[in-house]
């Protein structure tokens, strides 16, 4: 039996592996210990000189040693690579907080975002966006909406007119789009109309001569007050969250009857008005010549109001100053 000291071989391999400086050395070591010129190969050549019995025993020993060498080298190589990248990554240690700032939102104006959100909610239940002119006839803004000619809303102190006969004006409500849309389209109608409206107010913390409303209108056979309730409750839950409480209280608008205001219960327990609504007054449907079997409901919601509530914006003026410090937040 040959007496090669395998422990010595493995010990020398360990020393050799400890000294490795470059990844490429591992292939050389492998060649050195198990390659053609290696001690192990020489021993393997000698196997033929042994008895069958010894051949079997010694052969197995050689195989084990070979396996052990290969495994050690492979392990050492893996470890070497791991250490190499670990120390590389160890050197990189940037302060992660230096850009940990939120200075840019989506770059879209918050009023546009809120309008989109409201439009999307109604689009999901089958409403399409309609629009109409902002400089309107008094007829569309008042008469067609059942507002008598002595109504205070018509006074020049509230409404901005664009002709001396007071026949054209800057619309004071998006409800005008109800009329424009019904004049051009047959029922059924399911629309929302977001847009600008105007009042004779100087821009300050609580007033703006320009603000946004979203008008909604549904006219079909068999639409009832219970449908109005369900639709607006759906909207409020989608916009403010499932847990929001709502209530409907009676109100008065010239163009709806019954009319209601929708209130939501705010975090502090206070009830806040968020929209006005009602069953479309039969006179309005008559004005546009819709057949008697159609009826429906309408609502109007202030976009600034929704934005102010949702994001706790305190001054309406913020929306129109376009200060980057404000714009960047949304």
């Amino acid at each position: 039996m040959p007496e090669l000291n395998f422990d010595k071989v493995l010990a020398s391999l360990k020393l050799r592996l400890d000294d490795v400086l470059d990844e490429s050395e591992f292939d050389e070591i492998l060649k050195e210990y198990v390659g053609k010129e290696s001690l192990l190969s020489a021993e393997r050549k000698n196997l033929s000189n042994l008895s069958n019995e010894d051949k079997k025993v010694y052969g197995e020993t050689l195989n084990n040693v070979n396996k052990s060498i290969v495994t050690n080298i492979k392990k050492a190589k893996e470890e070497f690579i791991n250490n190499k990248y670990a120390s590389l990554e160890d050197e990189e240690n940037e302060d992660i907080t230096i850009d940990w700032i939120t200075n840019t939102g989506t770059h879209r104006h918050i009023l546009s975002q809120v309008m989109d959100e409201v439009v999307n909610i109604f689009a999901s239940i089958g409403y399409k966006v309609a629009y109409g002119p902002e400089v309107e006839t008094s007829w569309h803004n008042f008469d067609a909406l059942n507002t008598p000619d002595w109504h205070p809303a018509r006074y020049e102190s509230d409404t901005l007119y664009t002709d001396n006969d007071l026949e054209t004006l800057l619309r004071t409500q998006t409800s005008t789009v109800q009329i424009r849309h019904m004049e051009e389209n047959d029922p059924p109608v399911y629309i929302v109309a977001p847009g600008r409206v105007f009042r004779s107010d100087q821009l300050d913390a609580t007033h703006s001569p320009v603000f946004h409303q979203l008008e909604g209108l549904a006219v079909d056979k068999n639409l009832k007050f219970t449908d109005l309730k369900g639709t607006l409750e759906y909207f409020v839950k989608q916009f403010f969250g499932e847990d929001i409480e709502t209530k409907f209280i009676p109100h008065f608008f010239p163009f709806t009857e019954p009319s209601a205001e929708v209130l939501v219960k705010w975090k502090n327990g206070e009830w806040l008005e968020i929209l006005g609504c009602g069953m479309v007054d039969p006179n309005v449907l008559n004005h546009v010549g819709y057949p008697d079997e159609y009826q429906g409901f309408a609502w109007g919601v202030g976009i600034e109001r929704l934005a102010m509530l949702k994001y706790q914006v305190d001054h309406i003026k913020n929306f129109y100053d376009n200060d980057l410090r404000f714009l960047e937040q949304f």
Partner: protein
Amino acid sequence: MKILKSWLNDWIDIEAISTDDISEALESLGFEIESRTDKTPNYKNITVGKVLEIYEHPNADKVRITKVDVGSKTYEIVCGAWNFDVGAVVPVALPKSEIKDGFKIDKRDIRGVESNGMICSASELDLWDDHAGILKLSDQTKLGSDFSKIYNSTDTLWEIGVTPNRGDCMSHLGIARELSNYFNLTLKENSQSLKSNIESVIKVNSGKIKACNSYQSIEIENFTLSDSNLNIRYRLSSIGVRVINNVVDYTNYVLHDIGQPLHAFDRDKLFGTISVRFAKDNEKLKTLDEQERKLTSEDLIITDNDKPIALAGVMGGYDTEVTDTTTNLLIESAYFDKVSIMKTSRRLNLISDASIRFERGIDFNLQKQGLQRFVNLFENDQDINYSSIIDSSKNGIFYESISFDKNEIEQILGVELDDNFIRNTLIKLQIESDVSDKKIKFKSPSWRYDLERPVDLIEELAKHYGFNNFKSTLPIGNNLNSTGDYWDKRLYLSEKLSSTNFYEIQTLSFTDSLSNELFTPEKKSVSVINPIDQTQENLRTNLLTSLINTYRFNLESNGKSHRYYEINNVYDDSKHKKFKMIPNQEYSLGLLIPENETVEDRKRKTKTNNINTLANVIKNLFPSSELEHLSRPGFHKNYSYLIKLDNKILGFMGKLSYKIQSELELHDSLYIAQINTENFNFDQLKAFTYKPLSAYPFIKFDLSFSVPNDFQASNLINCIESILSDNENNISIFDNFTNEKTRNLGIRIVTRSYEKTYTETESTEILEMIVKEAESKFKIKLNKKDENAT
């Protein structure tokens, strides 16, 4: 409108009902609660005393010494008020009591005289604002009684909103009537009948006009002008009505009690027949605020022998007003048409509790009760003589019965209402009705001019049923998942622009006339005839000024230079393209890119933009658009273009002219554009097909051509595109170097065949073909090539 719980209790027994429940009832009936104040006395241990003696203070002129009897004992109290005499019954704050805001009263030396407390005014007890001096109580008040017990010191005040259709609810009676149904209480009767004891002197009629349906009067003799009683003063002052004297207080009280406005004339200043008519243009009347009013033929007036003496329902006349010397009264109680009252009160800007009620419409049957209540209140305080009521009603107003099918209720509301509920509600609301199996017949009472149609009554029933008691159902509309072209375009533009560092802005639609002139002098502005101020008298004809203003504002106040866009209407005086009567309005997009743009990162480097930056933005928004040079006001001579899409003008873009840049004191150049979003369809933007991806490797050439100064790179790109039209291509300009003599254009061509991998030879052939074609087609020359076939 303000209402008091104790006052409502005169009409229905609601003392025992909790204030929270009443608030809930009010709201559910449609009276929005603006505020609620639970009132408690803001004082402690105030007693009632009688002034027995008054004498001079030995060391002071401005105060007097009084001897006050508080029932059990007499105290000496120094007092600085002079509005009372011996015998006055007054509230007294003895030592150890407290007046308003916890101020403790004790014995005090006032200039050498010991004062045992103080005699109080209404404001010192926080009852109401009154600077007339000491609060005088009724002579009958028991001395020594606890002051808080002699009137309703614990009370609740609501300020509520009454919708404009409910004039009948502008009084405690009106609110009580609504609540009587909610709480199932019986409405009380409060007017006592009158027994006249004098003959009337003045003749009264309601004129020959429809606008005054009823004019009634009563005359009062032998009265004393004084304070009204504490309860009236407490109630009026609590609801914000200034307490003046008994005559004025009673008229105000009746108005807030039952909703009938009254007016008191000094009878001895009236001479002929009282009547009502419309004024003649330029007729004059001095109103009791001592102003000479020029009247118009729309003003309804009260006349005395045809001479104006009062503006009906709005304000009394100066010459006939009640003064300290008045000894006889004539009280007017009338029904005036709401429209004429409204016109006069708005024109003269005279808005009073009375005019507000006439404007909304008062009960046409209430005039007599108004006078009765007035006299009842007066009689309660002092002995007076009065005439019978002169009634000159025309009885020109009446309501017809209305009948409708009961199933209309379900058709509108979505629920069926029970017959008993309907009957009970109508009874409580005093609406005459007949509810049968199939029909409801009703007749509106004299105070409910809002119930003209079946739907009006259905609303009334719904309200009393409680809106929150209805079930909810969710109908689905007929436009599932399509928001429409208008909104799709807006979203498309916003998404593209916001993702390329533009900030969206929202600015007001108004501008001064100069700003419109600057960029769009060809358009005539739409002006507001009643503008908010001179800087907002025109509607903007372009969005550019607002963009520039926003850019400047943020540069100056935030030190940041950014890109902005706005999508909103511009207006001009030409005819609207679709609708009659209204001016043209174009839903437009405005863009602004500054020359030096702040990069929002830590390093704050600046990005430099030029006219090509804007052109690139336009091309990305509208891939098949074309630019056509056209000079226009406000723009750089060369850098001014029309934007066209399918030969239709979309808008214009360019560089702000140096002249305006300098006038606006802008350091940087600005690149601006405006696009009319109504001139393209959303579908048009999406009308392109996908370019297939080749499976073969690309070959790449960087070529540099020497080109003339006015050469357009896009021509070269198009030319090469057409040579390589069978391939998948990516052709771009990577360099554009210009000096005085020459211009070099670097073009990068990346191309792949759809069929094969190009060999080196094929690649060279392609390159040579391109160069040959380009040089022969244009006056350009290849400088060098950097072939890099991969």
